[in-house]
């Protein structure tokens, strides 16, 4: 299985593990410090989740309201059932507008639909302008983290990459590297005739979209070119402008540990007079791509409450060891392990719900209280019930036998007695290759319980109390 192979490769890559450990630890520490400045963090999480639940319960209504209001401000609305439709819509707009240079700000939805590859097939290569995405694009890789796409790279690796691709003198000075990227990108911004962005929140009552970022590249992407295409999952809509208050408290703090991102761009419609700033055309592409399927049941519906902060990745002990690429999916980490099977189908991602120790650290940090462990368990049950993914004949047999034995206490005692007598430990090379396995205790708890005198067995706590 590629997951195991890729995870092993990651575990054997000291640079990757060092970069990951440093970055996820830093994000975690910053997050803790940032949430301390919110008087009622738990209350904020509950309010945000309630808003998301309300929206998702009436998503059709809020989407109609959002699109009607966005349309009124001059935006053009496009509905995409799946990735192919979304790519077709965006590709067609680019061609109709005769776009030659396309700049793009960070968007996980665009990764989800593999937009760059689709545009490349039309002979168009968009330039990623988020620094992390730019690094990934230069390296010919995919993002390994929702908010920090190049989290798996060390500064040294980035320096070598820039020296090779941008022809600058090798330097591992962060400022010099950033300046080199900025210089290369500014030129592209100046000549760009189309900008593609994602969306963090879409406000139904005003038709406004909000984009959060730190580098200013999203603002340039959405304001300099004469055409702006915003790609959003249908779950990004929220009812009221005032709802942004709570989400602006939660998202930057959970994502990068900032009290607020450096830029918050609120975009409503197109420019009205020639002397105004902003694009002549704004196209908003609403992407379903499997999302409406998740609305059916409350357990899966909560997946759509995700605001893509990445906090669960930073907190996940599995992600912290192997990074994002091993998951083999656009969305990595705990949220990726629950989103991906629902987006691309259980059959193609049956391994992902099992890529977790179910420790629950993800649920603790999630700003909208998504019960990721419950979702993982739900998806595991679906994998087993629908026989998705690989054959599990031995495992099925093992669990059937386990249940049969556990339902019969006499049989259970007999089996354990034999194991005790013959000092049998389960044949588990996957365990014993790295860990010792202690033999069973010579006497079982039951035997001791029976042997104890009546007055002694009266109370375990009296025994511990030693009276």
């Amino acid at each position, binding site marked *: 299985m590629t997951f*195991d192979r890729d*995870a*092993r490769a990651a*575990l054997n890559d000291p640079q990757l593990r060092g970069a990951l450990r440093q970055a996820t630890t830093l994000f975690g520490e910053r997050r803790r410090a940032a949430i301390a400045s919110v008087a009622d963090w738990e209350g904020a999480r509950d309010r945000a989740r309630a808003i998301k639940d309300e929206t998702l319960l009436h998503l059709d209504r809020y989407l109609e309201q959002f699109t009607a209001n966005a349309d009124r401000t001059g935006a053009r609305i496009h509905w995409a059932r799946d990735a192919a439709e979304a790519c077709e819509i965006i590709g067609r707009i680019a061609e109709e507008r005769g776009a030659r240079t396309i700049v793009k700000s960070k968007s996980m939805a665009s990764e989800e639909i593999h937009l760059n590859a689709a545009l490349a097939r039309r002979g168009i290569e968009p330039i990623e302008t988020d620094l992390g995405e730019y690094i990934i694009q230069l390296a010919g890789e995919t993002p390994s983290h929702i908010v920090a796409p190049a989290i798996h790279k060390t500064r040294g690796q980035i320096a070598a990459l820039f020296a090779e691709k941008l022809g600058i003198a090798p330097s591992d000075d962060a400022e010099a590297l950033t300046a080199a990227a900025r210089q290369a990108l500014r030129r592209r911004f100046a000549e760009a005739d189309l900008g593609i962005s994602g969306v963090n929140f879409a406000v139904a009552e005003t038709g406004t979209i909000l984009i959060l970022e730190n580098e200013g590249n999203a603002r340039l992407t959405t304001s300099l070119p004469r055409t702006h295409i915003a790609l959003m999952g249908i779950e990004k809509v929220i009812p009221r402008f005032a709802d942004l208050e709570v989400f602006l408290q939660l998202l930057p703090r959970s994502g990068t540990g900032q009290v607020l991102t450096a830029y918050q761009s609120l975009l409503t419609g197109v420019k009205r007079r020639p002397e105004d700033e902003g694009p002549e055309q704004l196209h908003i592409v609403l992407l379903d791509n499997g999302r409406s399927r998740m609305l059916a049941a409350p357990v899966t519906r909560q997946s759509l409450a995700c605001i893509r902060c990445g906090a669960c990745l930073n907190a996940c*002990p*599995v992600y912290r*060891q*192997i990074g994002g690429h091993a998951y083999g999916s656009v969305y990595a980490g705990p949220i990726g392990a629950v989103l991906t099977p629902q987006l691309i189908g259980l059959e193609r991602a049956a391994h992902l*719900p*099992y*890529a*977790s*120790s*179910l*420790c*629950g*650290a993800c*649920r*603790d940090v999630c700003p909208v209280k998504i019960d990721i462990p*419950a979702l993982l*368990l739900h998806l*595991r*049950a*679906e*994998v*087993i*019930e629908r026989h998705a993914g690989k054959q599990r004949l031995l*495992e*099925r047999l093992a*669990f*059937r036998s*386990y*249940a049969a*034995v*556990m*339902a019969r*206490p006499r049989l*259970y005692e007999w089996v354990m007695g034999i194991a005790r007598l013959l000092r049998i430990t389960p044949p*588990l090379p*996957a*365990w014993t*290759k*790295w*860990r*010792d*396995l*202690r033999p069973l205790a010579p006497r079982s708890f*039951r035997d001791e*319980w029976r042997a104890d005198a009546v007055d002694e*067995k*009266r*109370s*375990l*706590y*009296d*025994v*511990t*109390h*030693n*009276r």
Partner: protein
Amino acid sequence: MGCVVEFDERQTCCGQPAFNTGYRPEARMLARRFIEIFESSGADAIVSPSGSCTAMVHHYEELFEDAAWRGRAWALAERTHELSAFLVNQLGVEDVGATFAGRLTWHDACHGLRDLGLKSEPRRLLRHVRGAELVELPNAESCCGFGGTFSVKHPEISVAMLDEKVEAIERAGVDAVVSGDASCLMQIGGRLSRRGSAVRVMHLADILAATA
């Protein structure tokens, strides 16, 4: 402490291994069995020396669709307690009169910590153990990498997680690492033993029953 303890010999496993691996029919069968057996006892409290098993009983309700079974599962969960929670929160006992000479550290097992919210309970009990010194690990709350079948489905990731835990334990210079779940202790102990470490793994109940 005034408790009368019963042990029903019909009891076996709570079904968590099946539930956590996705085998719901098997888990549901064992849950029904557990509920029937423990309902038949008139005990005020059902106590388990495992945060994980206790958390499973608290999950039983999710396994059923019909209201009757859900109600029974909920009622049973209401009186099912993890050992440290039972002692501290139900009985109001923090000093059980135990003695153990040595430096101890507490590993927070995930389900006890995050499903049941147990953090201070075991620590309060350990601080009252005569002769024992409680040392905190910087990563006490991190998963040890066991995760049930995860430990054998993805052993290399499991052991990478485990090594962070074990290295912290070794740096802490303790005589024993104590936890509330046998499975974590099997995982941590298995690696400590493989590395030739002298640090012992002990269940909370072992420490609380110790007299020297």
